[in-house]
């Protein structure tokens, strides 16, 4: 039995982005799966729980090259808590690809991050989204979105926001027993309650038993920009969003 062998990877979450610089055969996405299955138990999901090591920032104690990292993954570090594994070398290489992807810059379809940054404001993205302290909190905060999504996923989200909505980004609507309607996003939940950020950016705790009704919509609150942005503008926007890595790597 393994009551806990593997820290789960939520479907589609925290996948690494593509990176043109990877050697043939390296697969950062598969590496992300392996990382969460094999490494994050000790290193943490953000890779920073072992003192002196910050995997997301590619800060290692002794390793510098990809091969150094592969050797450590395969053989461990004697005298420390880092055990050897019996992963095949190509899978260890995928983990390295994932770690490298966390700090690598990404250019999508020749886009320009600076132009994308300007578009982000001009096109009204900040009316719902927040980046590094600017913008609304009603939509997901995108300050680290470059670490969490692949370019093609961001591209899809801009063109077809309904295609793949993360569970906590679904539009939530509830009516309390006194008839008050609440809309927003459920940012956490348990068997008996919802924790919600509503359309006025308030954090609300709702007891299910106190609600007359509640529902989730599989439609995104975000409009499609398919006919509102040119392909080049979308490339700029995605390139900008991909530059938004996890805050501690800046």
């Amino acid at each position: 039995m393994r009551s806990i062998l593997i820290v789960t990877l939520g479907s589609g979450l925290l996948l690494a982005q593509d990176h043109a610089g990877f050697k043939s055969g390296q697969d950062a996405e598969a590496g992300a799966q392996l990382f969460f299955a094999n490494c994050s138990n000790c290193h943490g999901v953000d890779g920073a729980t072992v003192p002196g090591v910050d995997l997301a920032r590619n800060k290692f104690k002794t390793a510098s090259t990809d091969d150094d990292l592969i050797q450590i993954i395969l053989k461990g570090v004697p005298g420390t808590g880092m055990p050897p594994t019996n992963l095949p070398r190509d899978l260890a290489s995928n983990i390295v690809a994932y770690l490298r992807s966390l700090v690598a810059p990404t250019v999508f379809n020749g886009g320009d991050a600076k132009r994308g940054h300007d578009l982000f404001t001009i096109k009204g993205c900040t009316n719902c989204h927040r980046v590094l302290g600017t913008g609304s909190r009603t939509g997901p905060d995108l300050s680290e979105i470059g670490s969490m999504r692949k370019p093609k996923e961001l591209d899809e989200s801009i063109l077809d926001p309904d295609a793949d909505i993360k569970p906590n980004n679904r539009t939530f609507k509830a009516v309390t027993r006194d008839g008050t309607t609440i809309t927003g996003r459920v940012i956490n939940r348990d068997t008996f309650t919802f924790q919600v950020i509503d359309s006025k950016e308030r954090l609300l705790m709702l007891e299910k038993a106190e609600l007359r009704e509640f529902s989730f919509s599989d439609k995104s609150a975000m409009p499609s920009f398919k006919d509102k942005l040119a392909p080049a503008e979308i490339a700029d926007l995605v390139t900008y969003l991909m530059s938004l890595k996890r805050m501690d790597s800046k």
Partner: protein
Amino acid sequence: MKYLAWSGSLLFAGSFVAPVLRAQVSFDRILNANKEPQNWLTYSGNLNGQRYSELAQITPASVSNLEMKWAFQARSTEKFETTPLVVEGKMYITQAPNDVIALDAATGRTFWAYNYTPSTDARPCCGRVNRGVAILGNTLFMATIDSHLIALDATNGHPIWNTVTGNAKAGYAMTLSPLVVKDKVIVGVAGGEYGIRGYIAAYDAKTGKEVWRFYTIPGPGEPGHETWPDDTWKNGGAPVWVTGAYDSNANLTYWGVGNPGPDFHGSERGGDNLYSDCVVALDADTGKLKWYFQFTPHDVYDYDAVQVPVLADMEWKGRNRKIMLWANRNGFYYALDRTTGEFLNGKPFSTVTWAKGLDERGRPMRIAADNPASNAQRIYPGPLGATNWYSPSYSPRTGLFYIPAWDNTHADFQDAPVEYKEGKNYTGGVLKNYGAGIRANQVLDRKEEDGYGVVRAIDAKTGDRKWEFKMADLTMSGILTTASDLLFTGSRDGYFSALDARDGSLLWKVSVGGDIAMGPMTYQVNGKQYVAFAAGSSLFAFTLRP
């Protein structure tokens, strides 16, 4: 018999002080534990594994008046999986990984602590945890993650003997609460993810000397050995993770056996791989195999039979039969004749896609291929199963079997070979899109389609679902039922709840903010019934407010 001790009520403000004869916990008392429900003498409360108590002071009408009486904070950040024992007002718990602590059951104050530091060779695959102690006479027994069995004086926590049962360096580890049968202490060894050869072994309670050993993988010349090609039997796993049960009439002790290794790479171990994923019935005096029943032949999904065997006597199609109830990690519920091992009935209790059902002998009719392919294949339930080590409960009053279940959990299994090296992970294969396993942070960001926890109440005779109580997150909590038709359970989202055992309606809940990953239990001291459970790093005792 020779001990005369002061009762724990010394510390209980306002209570009278009286000398209490500390009776030895004879095996006869353990055998008849239901007659003294104020105590909790074994992991499951009794030897039949029911986790059912005759205490009835707390009722469906009064349960909403429960309040916390005391809390004990563990000096450990590991999962708190212990089921406390209570004997005459003294509570005995383990603190992960391998400390034993004696508490006053009325106040939670500590009498003594025995701190054991396991060898650095210890490598339990899935948490440095422990599920509790056993008692016989005035001696406590703890199984450790470095594969020692340790006997302690229950009065002062001093070690009496310490027996090495297996090679910790090669992955042999113990996390279970031992089972006392007569004058023996029975344990099983974990390590199925490290290529061990599993066993169940009995030790003399007085001396710690091994009396018998049953290997869960038959050696050359033994029946069942032919189900392992070549030398695969040497590293075939088949570990034991959870305490067994005992039937005194048949003098049989029953144990669930874990998965074969490598877990997800089965092509080199073609065959049924006995006695992995079996329940084995052993003669309690000799360890000789009387019968076995295999739930998952040639398992490639980690579907260990890692559950407490639940024994119940009931009328079955016109005659009284001795039954064993089993909700397996593979998603099927089984009823067996526990004297012979005959399969009587079985049905899925959760979403199952790897098999379309059970045949007339209880063998699964597989849909999925015998071995994962090089292309990932999605299978329900996932490798953590439709249930796991968390104790179920059976109430003889309701006739219902209560399963702490997971539904909708799944994973994409993909083949990958692995070479055996001593002490190294030996699981093989790759898992993908592992929707619902361990939650890494406090926020639940998953849909129900990716897995949820649920208490499923099953008619023990028909296997039909009678009611269910769904949770937002998964559950690793066991279930306790009582003679007042209460059901207590916890959840990973940090609630401890009381349900009506008859219809599943929620009667009371309390938010305690930590994962409840143990089996709740109940006891009575100074005339008051308590319910105890651990959540996060704390152990709580609740009782009715005056």
